[in-house]
């Protein structure tokens, strides 16, 4: 039988989501640290953000759906709202960040982040 | 009294900004258009202030042209403007000096657009300080005036301008933080006393007059007064927090020096008159001996240090320290004559020192030096210039018939009387020593005049110098005419401020109670506004 995807997901335990989220987050974090290409660093940051999104959503799934009289802060909606916020900010961040990278590339013809040390004392 | 909506004061406040925007929109790189807009605009603003404020009634201490608009009602912050006798002349002085210094500014050749725009923004900020009737609004304008001035120094200043600008900014900014903190504490005190959170100066004054403002925590009054006094004393500047002034004055462009001496320093003394004394009646009276002592030290110290300067602008800058000492001495005499003298001396210092800076600027444009060793013997070469300089110098010395005398005379007389009658608990020696300050004023100013004008010409460059041009003479004559007017018919200036200054005095020396000065009748606007919101 083909179960609806929602049902399948419901059967996956919370720990699995959290584990996946943690794995992705660590991958992102390590990537940020070890890669020297700022574009890749960006992608790693996106990875971290999305891992957090995943965790938020999975928690939201296990919260009550927020009926009348319940504060929206404690309901599933809050986690989903948070995700949308994060995505919006991530988009903005990418726009600005890529802009900065482009500007740096234009002026220096290379984008190795280890060479970007003008702020060094 | 209309208490809402916009009136002449808001118009006055907005006009320089409008002109600044127009300057921003002026076509292309045409300096002519920018100058025309700037000078014409500031001239119109001056006319507007003269004509628009004609309805001012000097016979009452009540605020006039009051405008009120709640800005952040939750925090008790109101956009409230108003004018009384103390601010009346300072507003006119501001618009006039901005106009005159912009005329001089045709000598500015670099970044003309930004320069003119900044000067006009500065004008708005200065007017705001004198017109604001809300503590936070006052604070905002107080700080806002720093930025354009610091930029003027940093961009168009002399050789050491960066350091001077930073020093000026950090020094005065750091001091005014105390003002903000004090304001907040005071507003909370008001809330505890009356249940209304408000920064409205009138409401605060009314509470202070009734003696309820500090009733809950009497010890707090002195603490907060000190916080206010630090902010204002740095601005004045009083000894020993004066050292930003010589640097700022020396490095500032001429127009900046005129504004700095003419208006910016007055914010400090104005702050004392507007808030320092009426809001802290007991504390200000108690602190008066110390403040008078500092003022007297400033008078003597400033004069003596001035006598040893080798840079003409620095000399005049130190003379400002001495002159502002007289202002403070007058204000903190708590004597009827003395306080009016102090308040009047504010204007006089603006005119005489402003005039001197203008004249020094005119010479600087020619010979590009401010050092005495490069001058000398100019009396033969530039007789008209010498005569104008002489008159402004004598005004600064305080020769009767010119404006400087009246203020100094009244301030010293008041201080002497106050010490004699024990209004302020200070030794009689203090005003006597202060009086000897006028001797030292003669010393350093005559030294200056001698070094610039007497003797043979030693700098060969000077021997080919032409005298002032017509328009420069005309510009300087504005200052000269005002100096004579203020000396011969001082009543024109004294009468409108008498009632307001006397109200401030009575705030300090009369016992608090319901019969003390009424500040916000007939319409207690501030209370009503903020009351409804909460």
């Amino acid at each position, binding site marked *: 039988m083909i179960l609806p995807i929602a049902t399948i997901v419901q059967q996956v335990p919370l720990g699995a989501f959290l584990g996946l989220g943690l794995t992705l987050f660590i991958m992102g974090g390590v990537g*940020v*640290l070890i890669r*020297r290409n700022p574009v890749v660093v960006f992608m790693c940051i996106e990875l971290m953000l999305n891992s957090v999104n995943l965790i938020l959503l999975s928690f939201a799934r296990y919260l009550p759906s927020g009926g009348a009289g319940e504060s929206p802060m404690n309901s599933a909606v809050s986690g989903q709202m948070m995700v949308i916020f994060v995505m919006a900010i991530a988009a903005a961040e990418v726009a600005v960040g890529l802009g900065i990278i482009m500007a740096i590339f234009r002026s220096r013809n290379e984008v190795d982040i*280890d060479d970007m*040390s003008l*702020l*060094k004392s | 009294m209309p208490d809402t909506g916009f009136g002449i004061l808001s118009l006055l406040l907005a006009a320089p900004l409008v002109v600044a925007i127009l300057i921003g929109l002026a076509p292309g790189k045409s300096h002519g258009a920018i100058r025309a807009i700037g000078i014409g605009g500031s001239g119109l603003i001056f006319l507007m202030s003269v004509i628009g404020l004609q309805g001012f009634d000097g016979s009452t201490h009540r605020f006039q042209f009051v405008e009120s608009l709640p800005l952040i009602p939750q925090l008790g912050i109101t956009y409230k403007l108003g004018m009384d006798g103390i601010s009346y002349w300072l507003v006119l002085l501001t618009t006039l000096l901005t106009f005159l210094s912009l005329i001089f500014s045709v000598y500015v050749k670099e970044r003309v657009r930004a320069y003119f725009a900044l000067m006009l923004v500065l004008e708005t900020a200065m007017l705001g300080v004198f017109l604001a009737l809300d503590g936070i609004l006052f604070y905002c304008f107080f700080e806002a005036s720093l930025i354009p001035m610091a930029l003027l120094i940093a961009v168009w200043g002399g050789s050491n301008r960066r350091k001077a600008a930073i*020093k000026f900014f*950090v*020094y005065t900014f750091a001091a005014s933080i105390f003002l903000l903190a004090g304001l907040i504490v005071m507003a909370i005190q008001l809330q505890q006393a009356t249940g209304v959170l408000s920064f409205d100066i009138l409401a605060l004054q009314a509470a202070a007059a009734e003696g309820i403002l500090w009733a809950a925590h009497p010890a707090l009054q002195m603490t907060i007064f000190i916080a206010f006094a630090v902010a204002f004393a740095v601005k004045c500047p009083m000894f020993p927090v004066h*050292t930003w002034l010589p640097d700022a004055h020396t490095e500032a462009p001429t127009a900046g020096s005129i504004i700095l001496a003419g208006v910016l320093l007055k914010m400090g003394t104005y702050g004392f008159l507007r808030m320092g004394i009426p809001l802290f009646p007991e504390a200000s009276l108690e602190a008066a001996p110390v403040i008078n002592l500092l003022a007297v030290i400033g008078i003597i*110290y400033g004069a*003596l*240090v001035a*006598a*040893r300067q080798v840079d003409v602008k620095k000399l005049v800058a130190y003379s400002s320290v001495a002159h502002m000492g007289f202002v403070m001495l007058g204000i903190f005499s708590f*004597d*009827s*004559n003395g306080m009016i003298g102090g308040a009047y001396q504010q204007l006089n210092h603006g005119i005489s020192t402003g005039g001197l800076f203008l004249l020094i600027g005119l010479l600087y*444009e020619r010979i590009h030096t401010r050092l005495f060793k490069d001058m000398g*013997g100019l*009396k*033969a070469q530039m007789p008209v210039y010498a*005569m104008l300089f*002489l008159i402004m110098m*004598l005004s600064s010395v305080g*020769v*009767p*018939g010119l404006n400087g*005398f*009246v203020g100094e*005379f*009244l301030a*010293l*007389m008041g201080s*002497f*009387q106050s010490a*004699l009658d024990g209004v302020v608990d200070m030794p009689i020696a203090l005003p006597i020593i202060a*009086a000897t300050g*006028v*001797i*030292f004023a*003669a*010393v350093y100013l005559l030294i200056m005049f*001698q070094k610039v004008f*007497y*003797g*043979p010409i030693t700098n*060969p*460059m000077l*021997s*080919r*110098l*032409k005298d002032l*041009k017509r328009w420069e003479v005309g510009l300087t004559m504005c200052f000269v005419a005002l100096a004579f007017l203020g000396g011969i018919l*001082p*009543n024109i200036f*004294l*009468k409108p401020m*008498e009632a307001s200054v006397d109200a401030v005095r009575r705030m300090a020396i009369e016992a608090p109670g319901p019969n003390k000065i009424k500040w916000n009748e007939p319409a207690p606007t501030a209370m009503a506004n903020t009351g409804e919101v909460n």
Partner: protein
Amino acid sequence: MEAANYQAIYWVILLPLLGALFQTLVGKAMVQRSPGLGKLVSGGVAVGTVLAGFGIGLFHHLRLINDPGSVKAATITYFDWINLAQLHIPVELRFDALSSTMVLVITGIGGLIHIYATRYMAEDKDFTRFFAYLNLFVAMMLILVLGNNLALLFVGWEGVGVCSYLLIGFWHKDLANSRAANKAFITNRIGDVGLALGMFWLVALIGGNREVLGLTDARWLSYDVLIPAASQLLSQFPHETFWISLLLFVGAMGKSAQFPLYVWLPDAMAGPTPVSALIHAATMVTSGVVLLNRVSEIIALSPAAMSIIAGVGAITALLGAIMAWGQTDIKKVLAYSTVSQLGYMFIACGVGVFYAGMFHVVTHAFFKALLFLGSGSVIYAMAHNQDMRNYGGLGKKLKITYVIMGIGYLALAGLPFAFSGFWSKEAILGPAVNDTATLPLVGGLTVGAVAGWVGFLVAFMTAFYMTRMMCLTFGGKTERWREIEPAHHDDHGHDHGHAHGHAHDDDHGHEMDPAFFMTEEEAHAAAGHDDHHHHDLDKTHEPKEVPWLMWAPLIPMAIASFGLIGVWMYGDVWKAPHPHPFEGFLHSAEVVTAKNGKVEGGSALAPRNLEDHGDDHGKEEKKEKGVDTNTLVLVSALTFAGGVGLGLALYGRRLPASEGFDLSKWNPIQKAAGKQLYLDSALSGGSSKGVMGLASAFKVFDKGVIDGLLVEGPPKVVRAVGGLLTTLQSGFVRGYAALMQIGIIALVAYFAYVVSQRGGQ
């Protein structure tokens, strides 16, 4: 007394003021366009305004004398100067005997000096500037004497100080002149501060007691309010009276060159000679006496203050006379003589005969202005050399000047009966030696009496040094300038500051903006105008009598110096020494004012002393005990004869070798006298060194301690700490990221720990 009758008196002040304005705005342009006509017109205007003022003054003076009213004083109010709740100072003039006398002296002598100056200054480039200043001075001096309140007096007081400053430094190319001008102004300011403080105290006193006095108007500085109120109040406060009187006297000391504030007056001779005559002899320096006359009722209440005034007067008179003896500069002799004579006037005030002080002001104004102008003529004739050692035998060359100056000399030396100086001096010294009101000093004599006897000593010395001056200048047969070789450059006493400091241009690569600078040709053309020939005194010089414009104005002064004026004013001294007619005239107004006020009794205004207010019997008795008039006249005659005799004996034929150019041959006392007994270097040199030293110390303190340590110290600390921290900034971005991550992990761990401790709450 109708004030309206005297309404027009303000023209006396206004005319010279307009004259000054005319010189500045119109005259200068005219002279630039056509020097000859321009100087004629502007000189004419300058003289005209002052002489017109004299006419107006005379008209009002006669009206005052013939006024049928009993109060011979009019107060005319024009407009408010300062009108505050606690202080009301209107611009009001007081026309009474004192001010009208001074108006006549100022405009009369001033007008004559203006005439003289039109010729004396004719070649000067700054002709109009000179007359602008001089006219302004006359106006200010008139404000001083005519003002009806102390504040207006103060306006004139400082105003004449400014004019004096400007005129001393008139020849501005010589820095020495500028220094003398600064010295004069600053020394005067010391006095001004005293006067101002005295005024403040009076205001505080009267203002504080306004209910007691029943005053409604705040015109507390106006004489008609001030004098009665102050004398009523102060009689209860001897301490305050003393200090107020002393402060007012300090003001008078500054302006009237009393010891120790006299130091500026000799230096003030750097100004042109007409200035010395008008300002530093006839008018400004006597304003201290005018002030003391105005406030005589207050001062008279304090015997201690009176003693100080008399004592200072005596010291000044003596010092001036000693120093005059050591001078070689003809103008300096007269300057010290002025100091000495001013001392007399203060002796008069100190012993309570204020009117006699005024009397001496008037007579002295005439003969001293005469002497100064005469010396100016001599200097003019001698190519602006002022050193008497270069003169000699001029009596034959400058006959008119010689005769005229001779009259002035006799008046100053005090030839009995014939000359005015004798009468006014007698009017002072007579009461002084009989004085009993001031504090006792030695041997039963009071300070005033000692001052009187010192006065006689000074009279002897005056006759002596004036004889010396006349002999060295006009007497003898040797024409000493014949010994000067043409090449010899005498650096003594250049009256004219024509030393050109004109340096030739050499542009060291300066960018000269043509908008601001002249071309080289224009500069030369501009400088060329004042490049007129000026030759030094040498043996080729032939002194000629000065132009008539320079001796004619002296004739009225010479006439006035004759004793006739003294006789008229003094009445017959032998029969009725009291009251003095001049006293009666001078104080007619105040007597009535005093009656209107609180003081009862006749001549309370100029009390000889405190006990005998108008008590003639008491005075007669004292006269009998004291030195009688005949003896005094005899003593006077003896001092005159002795002084002149000694002078003639020493200097009659030649310049003694001990007073030549070789200073080492001088006798030490006279040498010291010539150097002001080293008082000047001690007083003004010392104080200026002290002040400037303090100023330097303050400057260092300001730069080092306040600015360096307190202001720039904290930022330095911040910078140092920041410097340490900057080493953390490696510039390795991934390092930062790692650090951040570690930090976040640590934080999370910490919070997790905290939460777990609380049991998951």
